[in-house]
């Protein structure tokens, strides 16, 4: 009753893990587009992994966070909150406020993904990062075929997250051998300066950032790191009243960060 084995065709012989050569080419095109941003992803992961250990958190928890949250800024914010002894609910809310920007990317990607099967949409959503979302939105029109486009976007998104996860694992492994005198904690403000300052291009954004800094410092005696949450929310609220001379882009300038 078993069907006779189909004769090997040239294309069948070249498939790898059941994925055709065209798909691999489209995947690779996406990976090449995001490759310049990968060192930053690895370095960020390394810093997060090392920070996890210096905060006294178990290594496997750090690796779990890199795989499941996939959002470095919020993960570092959680580590900071844990370090200062904040209640869990404050740590979670702070992280979700920071990650609320993904709602914007999700809205921008909705038309890009609209012709994909649902399992692709829901899977690619987990791999959404600032950088991959920016590249995907910018390049989507070059890939009109939905099948080729989804492989392209997978090639943009998956390796970038893989580099992040591997960087974290390396940081977790190296964390315990990094001496205290190196003051690894400096990576927290440095990382955020590197990500945020180059993208401060509009008056509302600049206002939001400056108000946030002022409120964090004025409210420094609030317990449980609540000054961070208060500062961020006040900055967003006041910044949104500032008129913008030019229409802001769909996605912040993440794609140009490493240019």
């Amino acid at each position: 009753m078993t069907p006779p084995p189909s004769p090997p065709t040239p294309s069948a012989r070249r498939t790898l893990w059941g994925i055709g050569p065209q798909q691999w080419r489209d995947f690779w095109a996406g990976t090449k587009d995001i490759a310049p941003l990968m060192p930053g992803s690895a370095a960020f992961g390394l810093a997060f992994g090392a920070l996890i250990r210096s905060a006294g958190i178990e290594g496997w928890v750090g690796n779990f966070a890199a795989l499941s949250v996939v959002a470095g800024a919020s993960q570092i914010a959680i580590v900071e909150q844990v370090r200062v002894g904040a209640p869990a609910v404050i740590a979670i809310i702070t992280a979700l406020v920071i990650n609320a920007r993904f709602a914007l990317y999700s809205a921008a990607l909705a038309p890009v993904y609209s012709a994909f099967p649902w399992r692709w949409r829901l899977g690619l959503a987990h791999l959404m990062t600032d950088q991959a979302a920016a590249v995907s939105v910018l390049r989507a029109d070059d890939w009109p075929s939905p099948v080729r486009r989804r492989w392209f976007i997978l090639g943009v998104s998956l390796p970038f997250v893989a580099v992040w996860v591997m960087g974290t694992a390396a940081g977790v492994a190296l964390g315990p051998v990094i001496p205290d005198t190196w003051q690894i904690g400096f990576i927290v403000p440095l990382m955020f300066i590197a990500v945020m300052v180059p993208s401060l291009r509009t008056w509302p954004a600049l206002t939001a950032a400056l108000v946030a800094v002022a409120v964090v410092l004025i409210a420094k005696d609030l317990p449980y790191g609540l000054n961070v949450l208060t500062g961020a929310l006040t900055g967003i609220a006041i910044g949104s009243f500032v008129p913008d001379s030019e229409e802001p882009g769909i996605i912040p300038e993440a794609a140009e960060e490493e240019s």
Partner: protein
Amino acid sequence: MRVFMIFLIAAIGTYLIRISGIVLLGGKRDLPPRVRRSLNLIAPAAMAAIIANSLLLDGAAWREFGAWHIAAAVAVGVALWKRSMGWTLLAGVVVFAGLLLAGL
């Protein structure tokens, strides 16, 4: 285990945020301009808040002036000049390491 639970809940919440637009909008509708403007400001406001808290404060006290402030100022300068994440990180790390080695 407590930290694991924090990351787990943050992961679930973050995933719901990531699928929000894809599921709710489906590529047919657009966000109201007011909502879009606010979402655009989340990243700068939240990151600035974390920078201020981790750089200028140490717990509820002011951080003593030293290598942190100087290296961060250099990093901000390089970030504005080069508009590049890579150069900013490199400058910040090199200056900070130099200052620590110099005993600051």
